[in-house]
């Protein structure tokens, strides 16, 4: 399998007052297409920073990162936006759905920025909601849905533009264990059946254990363990 994500010597520092914080310190790392990788580590270890850099939300201070042939370290903001839209699906711990929009409208949001036609958007969004088992909840608003259902909507939104990579930051963090299991099952299915590269950031060992590969970040340094 060819590497879809390639990171070489990436350093990301933050200024916190006078102190300089090394969120990522000379990290090199690669992920093959279709892999399921769990990124673990204590809070503040830099695992979210790594995910953000891969997802094109953040840029490294030094080092190179290439995802699916896109060099992200020297990409302009507009290109990064388009990259996120086309290549990455984000799933957040707190779902981050738009409260006054229906499930369908939430899933349509990335397609709006992808300049897809309104009719096609609806068809595609419906398709995605059906894929996560919410075909009968299209017109529901987030407040009318359970936590697990909300996360499913969020996953459907992440899938809308058919990205190759799904980045999930503590996707089960706000759910009870039964709902969490369901979400993990759904994500693994997507990884297996659709071949979507799956990156999960978690400090939950039960979640990490299900991954094909676990990498641990501690104080900005990466340690790899084969799962």
């Amino acid at each position, binding site marked *: 399998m060819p590497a879809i994500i390639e990171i070489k010597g990436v350093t990301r520092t933050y200024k916190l007052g006078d102190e300089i914080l090394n969120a990522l310190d000379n990290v090199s790392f690669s992920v093959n297409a279709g892999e399921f990788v769990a990124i673990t580590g204590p809070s503040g270890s830099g695992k979210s920073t790594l995910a953000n850099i891969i997802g094109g*939300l953040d840029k490294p201070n030094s080092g190179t990162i290439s995802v699916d042939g896109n060099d992200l370290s020297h990409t302009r903001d507009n290109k990064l*936006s388009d990259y996120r*839209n086309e290549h990455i699906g984000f799933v957040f711990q707190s779902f*981050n759905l738009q409260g006054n929009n229906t499930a369908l409208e939430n899933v349509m*949001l990335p397609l709006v*920025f992808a300049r897809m036609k309104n009719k096609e958007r609806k068809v595609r969004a419906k398709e995605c909601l059906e894929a996560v088992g919410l075909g009968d909840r299209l017109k529901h608003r987030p407040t009318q849905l359970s936590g697990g259902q909300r996360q499913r909507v969020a996953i459907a939104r992440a899938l809308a533009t058919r990205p190759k990579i799904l980045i999930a930051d503590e996707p089960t963090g706000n759910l009870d264990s039964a709902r969490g299991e369901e979400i993990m099952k759904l994500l693994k299915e997507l990884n297996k059946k659709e071949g979507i590269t799956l990156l999960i950031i978690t400090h939950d060992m039960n979640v990490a254990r299900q991954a094909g590969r676990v990498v641990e970040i501690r104080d900005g340094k990466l340690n790899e363990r084969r799962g």
Partner: protein
Amino acid sequence: MKFTDYIRIAFRNIRRQKLRSALTIFAVVIGATSVTIMLALVTGAKSFFLRQVESSGMLQQIAVSPKQDITDFNDAGNGSNCDSCVKLTDDIVNKINKIDHVTGVAREYGAYQLQALVYNGKKLSMNRTDAYDANGVITVTMVAGRDFTPEDKEGVVIITADYADKFGFKGHYQDMVGKEIIIQTQKGYSGVGADVPRPEPPKPGEQNNGPPDYPATQLKAKVVGIQDTSDNSQTVRVPLDWARAINVNHMWQVTEADQKLNEAACKNSRGPCGNQNNMTLVATDYFTQSGYQALIVKADTAKNAKLVAADIKKLGVGAADAESMINQQLMIFNIMGLILGGIGGIALVVAAIGVINTMIMAILERTREIGVMRAVGARRSTVRKLFTFEASLLGFFGGVFGVLVGYGLTRIANVVVNKQLASQSVKASNIIGMPIWLILTVVGIATLIGMLAGLYPAARAAKLDPVEALRYE
């Protein structure tokens, strides 16, 4: 992102905070309403003025003045006493009549030494007495009776509705027509109709007393018509011939012939030779010294008025068409529009601050949402446009409702103004108009102000770091 998506999302966001959006829009409505009303008033007044000017035929008129350097139509009657003035005589009138495109000349001449109008025991002071040819060059609107005809020579008068009101004929002007009223002169008047007694010869040893103090004369006049008051109120019009006759001074004088007679009588007499008093009543026609006050020349078309004015100037007299006067008047309207519009504009600026405030609040509330939008592929420019659209939409709604409210208020104002105009017997109604350009301008300005107010908040939203925004609580 497509234009319709921007509108749709902005509209949805405005509906999210209904009360706050409504209050923000309300502030814009106040501004837009005041701009609408101010502009509608000025526009209405302006078009009313232009219509009046057009219907009065003023655009075809050229004012001729004894003063050579007049530039303004209204200056024509003033200042006939200057060194370089050229007397306006019938000779000049004939010459003007021969100029191409001239269709008529009205000679203007004022009557002096008139003091008051008396009817039924009521005495009203007189401000102005006009007299000009009744040949259709100068047209006036009559509310009752008729205008003068060339057959009217003397003993007739036209008064403005304002006088008729004060004499108690308000609302039934027709009843005043045919009534006889008195034009009372000043003391010392010696024109037509005055009783000018021969002065007593000075007694021996007395100084000559100079001209005697004649009592005021009561000139009888029949009211033939009541004239509209709207242009210049309190005018009394008499026929041109009568005005000339009124201005003729009569005075007992010892002429050279009288002097000789007196001297001859003195030689023949044996007694003291002081009270020989042969005298003659000498009439001095003021007109022969002054000429006409002004001439109003009518050109065949408004376009030719300028040409005719230029030709008249070649005769050595002053001439001006109404253009500069109208332009000056229009400029006053425009300045008024700017000032009044500016006052409304201040309200709009205050409303803009409200829009800025609302948008900053909205962005704080929606920080996470902005983060999500950025994460799923919204560009900075998309976020900026989205919030700019939202602010513009607030302005747009404010503008639309402002125009609606303004329209309602001008309708009410028209009812009041119509009554006022009717009471002054002006044939015009609904003069405060709302042309389509005004509606578009106000809505456009309100939208533009909303957009400008949205620029800063939108820039702030676009600058947000997506990672920070997603973490925002």
